[in-house]
């Protein structure tokens, strides 16, 4: 095939051009200090906090959750952080403590309720597990609040991840709202055929089967056209791809990541010493 006017010099398969080389590229920023940290720094930060919570349990849980809350507030996301945390992780933590307290056998009885007996050993085990769950959960929720998918994918591209891998990640995340829209169309179609979809739980459950079937079939049938569409738009073309935007990895990000790694080494060291003693 002849090269057309759109085909610049090609180098290796699946790499990206350095976006900083062109004045037509732009930095992808949100305007917030925490959310504008490099995604690798954000991942390191959340990972470090989660690991600390796992290693130290109740000792550090409060500190980890507080740091997560403060960072969320600095990112302007304190309210969604607290909402998500209290509706998911906190409830899970309380459930773990309650179940452990009543179902882990022990010799020290705290109190009895109906058929169940709360034990001090169960309570201690519950606090140990729940504190780790709370710490890891808070770190994950922090990450959800500060990490932007577009910036993460761009950063991975800049670090050499293959376009196919970044496509899979982005398409997987985006497929949920797309399928929700398709689901709406199918539900409207089923309603027009007399299938009841807006009523009590039993009726909704009955409507689920005639809705989910076409959704899955449509999705399977759409895969072939989607693949061919991508091919038509040069997705499998070899050579360097263009980036229109880029994510900064500033010196402060690199310093912060070094600091996180040093802190983690120190924390692991302290944990080992505490285990030995």
């Amino acid at each position, binding site marked *: 095939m002849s090269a057309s006017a759109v085909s610049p010099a090609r180098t290796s398969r699946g790499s990206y051009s350095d976006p900083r080389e062109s004045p037509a590229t732009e930095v992808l920023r949100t305007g917030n200090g925490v959310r504008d940290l490099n995604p690798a720094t954000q991942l390191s930060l959340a990972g470090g906090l989660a690991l600390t919570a796992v290693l130290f349990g109740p000792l550090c849980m409060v500190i980890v959750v507080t740091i997560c809350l403060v960072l969320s507030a600095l990112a302007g996301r304190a309210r969604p952080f607290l909402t998500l945390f209290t509706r998911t992780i906190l409830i899970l933590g309380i459930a773990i403590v309650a179940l452990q307290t009543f179902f882990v056998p022990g010799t020290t009885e705290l109190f009895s309720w109906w058929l169940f007996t709360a034990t001090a050993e169960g309570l201690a085990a519950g606090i140990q597990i729940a504190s780790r769950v709370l710490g890891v959960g808070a770190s994950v929720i922090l990450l959800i609040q500060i990490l932007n998918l577009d910036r993460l994918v761009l950063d991975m591209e800049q670090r050499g991840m293959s376009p196919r891998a970044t496509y899979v990640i*982005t398409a997987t995340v985006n497929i949920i709202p797309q399928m929700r829209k398709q689901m709406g169309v199918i539900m409207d179609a089923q309603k027009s055929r007399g299938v009841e979809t807006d009523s009590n739980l039993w009726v909704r459950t009955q409507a689920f089967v005639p809705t989910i079937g076409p959704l899955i079939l449509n999705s399977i049938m759409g895969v072939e056209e989607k693949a061919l*569409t991508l091919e*038509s738009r040069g997705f499998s073309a070899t050579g360097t791809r263009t980036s229109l935007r880029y994510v900064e990895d500033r010196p402060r990000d690199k310093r912060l990541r070094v600091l996180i790694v040093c802190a983690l080494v120190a924390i692991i060291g302290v944990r080992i010493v505490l285990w030995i003693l």
Partner: protein
Amino acid sequence: MDSVTLTDVTYTYPGSEGPVLRDINLSIRAGEFCSIIGPNGAGKTTLCAAIRGFVPKFYKGDFEGTVRIKGEDIADASIGEIARDVGFVFQNPFTQMSGITASVYDELAFGLRNLGVPPAQIRERVEGMLELAGITAFRDRDPFQLSGGQQQRVALAAMLIMEQDVIVIDEPTSQLDPQSTDDVFALIEAAQKQGRTIVLVEHKMGHVARYSDRVVLMGEGRIQAIGTPADVFTDPAAASHGITLPESIELAQRLAGHGVTVPGSPLTVPALIGALSGGSHHVAD
């Protein structure tokens, strides 16, 4: 110069009992608007897939003959390489979105990014295509939040922006209302005026008659008739293959049954009205 040439093409899908395409010989000139019509199962979509290289490269199966794009055999080119010369637009706009872009702007830029076009050139071409396709108003909108007609224009624009010489379009208006259909055809016509070769599969015969330079009638995997819209739509083969004729041709034929002969073959209703009101028709005694 011929832009697309198919020579002795016969193709059978894997597991299929017989060939879907049989001894196809077809040449399409550069810059020509060629429409492919025919009943369901005639092989229209498969013919398009052969021009784009999806047959046999994607669908596999038994393929005989040669397909040349701008004189070069595409047998040895990968699907990705063919993408530089041949674009393809499907009938379902929903599956034609890349699925990874958050705005129409990024959707148009997607293909150019894959081909490594420099950023400044991408921005210039995206702005130009937004304007040409009349979709500037939704440049920042999520492609999946657009209506079917808007999505189809975005899909077409996303293909046209790649500036391939040949654009293959498979039933782009089958899910669209009349206004959206007109908008899509206006965009296809604009692409042809830019010098692109258009290969279109379409069931809306009024539009086929109005826009096409040449019409190919397919039936049972073979080319049954080929020529100008007037030639094909007045060919008895068209009726025998269950083709719905353009309103103007059908009206002219009915008038002929009532003794009113309209000269020529008016391809549009306004042309028919013009012929009748201009006094060039003949009323039998």
